[in-house]
């Protein structure tokens, strides 16, 4: 080891010194845990009681009871209908709204209110929107469809607008220079750059709508959610498990199909 002089400088910092900020954060979190758990009355006892209850619950849930298949099936179909129709409208509307919300394509007087609207759609949980629509248009699938259209807009239009804002404007300029109309410019220069991402968002939202359509029924907006909720309230746990299995199967099939769509486009 010739040539290596030992380092005698006393000022070398320990490279693995623990950061005080990290320690403070961890301490704060632990403190919060202790405080909140006690303040909210969540003791270990309750947890244990709960878990012993779970044995009883599970035994009542299995085997799943598919005998009320008529009810199950109609709820399933309604959820599907809600998901499909709301995705259709949601996707098409988002295509236009997302374009209008892109600040590099539209003047601020158009893009700002549209962005505001999209933000509004995103801010509320679909269930809350569902409650409002149920009050406005009554129980049933219509409320569910309207709810999910707005939920879809909040998601797809926002991401689509962001994708458009990230494109290279150089090709747009070149197409404009050929004398193409605004619509042609959008279709030929903007869309090819963002289309794959749009398909990704759309298929994600279709999947998400499928999940949500099974949930908005809990507040009366149609679909399996309603069936599920009433089964819970009647303590029909074996029917509950049947419904849950159907929901999970539906979602898995939906995911599978959306992967195929994404690959083709």
């Amino acid at each position, binding site marked *: 080891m010739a040539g290596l002089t030992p380092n005698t400088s006393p000022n070398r910092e320990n490279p*693995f010194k623990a950061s005080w900020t990290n320690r403070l954060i961890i301490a704060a*979190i632990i403190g919060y*845990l202790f405080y*909140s*758990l006690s303040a*909210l009355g*969540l003791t270990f006892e*309750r*947890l244990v*009681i*709960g*878990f012993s*209850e*779970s044995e009883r*619950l599970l035994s009542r849930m299995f085997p799943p009871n598919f005998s009320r298949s008529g009810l199950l099936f109609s709820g399933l*179909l*309604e959820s*599907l*209908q*809600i998901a*499909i*129709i709301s995705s*259709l409208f949601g996707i098409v509307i988002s295509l236009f709204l997302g374009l209008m919300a892109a600040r590099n394509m539209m003047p601020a007087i158009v893009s700002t209110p549209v962005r505001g609207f999209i933000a509004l759609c995103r*801010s*509320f*949980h679909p*269930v*809350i929107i569902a*409650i*409002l*629509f149920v*009050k*406005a*248009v*009554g129980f*049933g*699938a*219509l409320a569910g*469809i*309207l709810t999910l259209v707005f939920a879809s807009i909040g998601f797809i239009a926002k991401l689509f607008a962001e994708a458009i804002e990230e494109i290279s404007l150089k090709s747009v300029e070149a197409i404009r220079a050929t004398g193409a109309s605004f619509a042609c410019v959008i279709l030929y220069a903007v869309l090819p750059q963002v289309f794959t991402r749009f398909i990704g968002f759309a298929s994600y939202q279709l999947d998400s709508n499928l*999940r*949500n359509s*099974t*949930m908005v029924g*809990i*507040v009366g907006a149609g679909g399996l*959610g309603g069936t*599920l*909720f009433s089964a*819970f309230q009647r303590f029909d*746990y074996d029917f509950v498990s049947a419904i*849950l299995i159907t*929901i*999970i199967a539906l*979602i*898995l099939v939906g995911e599978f199909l959306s992967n*195929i*769509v994404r690959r*083709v*486009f």
Partner: protein
Amino acid sequence: MTTAHINNKSHVENIPQVGNMSHIDKEWQRFTSSERIARFAIYLCFVSAIVWSWQTVEVIPEFLYDAPAQFADMFERMMPLDYAFYPESIHEAMVETLNIATLGTLFTLIFAIPLALLNAPNITPNKTLNWIAQVFLVSSRSVNSLVWALLFIALFGPGLLAGIMAIAIRSIGFVGKLLAEALAEVNAGPIEALRATGASWMSILLKGYWPQVMPAFYSIVLFRWDINVRESAVLGLVGAGGIGVILNDAQNLFEWQKVAMVLVSIFTVVIVAEAVVIHIRNKII
């Protein structure tokens, strides 16, 4: 790439003039045959699904036309907001909701981190374990937090605990999946170096993986916390505690002014939470 057409200036006359070539109509197709068949098949499926749904869904069109009037009526009833309601009931319930979201997010880490470790192929090479972890992650995501809430209410009775557990279990899939992806994308170099020094498995995790996934980890947790704040707000609708309970009671009694106040409060809290998350993320990243 041929440059045969591009000749020296002096041979300009010999270059074939564009437009003097014989007019054989050339064909052009945008997609190959197999692509077209696939696209057509998908279009067909979509259109039939849409047509079927449209025709069979039970919707009364009159209700749709009536909707704007109904909305106007509802907004009228909501004004003016019942501001006094806030200190009365909303504030406490809001705090409860935030606690549900935070505790739920913290608890989810207990399950999500091990599952993510099991699911990441570079940490756990065993394919069966990867797959088992994947099953847990997917199932947790497939069921809505509302449905989990219903289940946990059946277990723990209505109240906070059910809400916290619902949030925790639902978030496992989200956090676990994103964390596993972040772990899988880790740069193998430093890990190999650590392994070469003979470091223990735990040390490699803490000093090799953790520094690399740390920004992604905080980002994912904050993102999920933000979503959980929204989710926690509605869990009360089925009885799992938080502001949702207040909302449910108010709307069952048709007290629209109170409902409006609750909605505004939820909206404000969600916006503030998002702002906080964005602020912290900018600090970290």
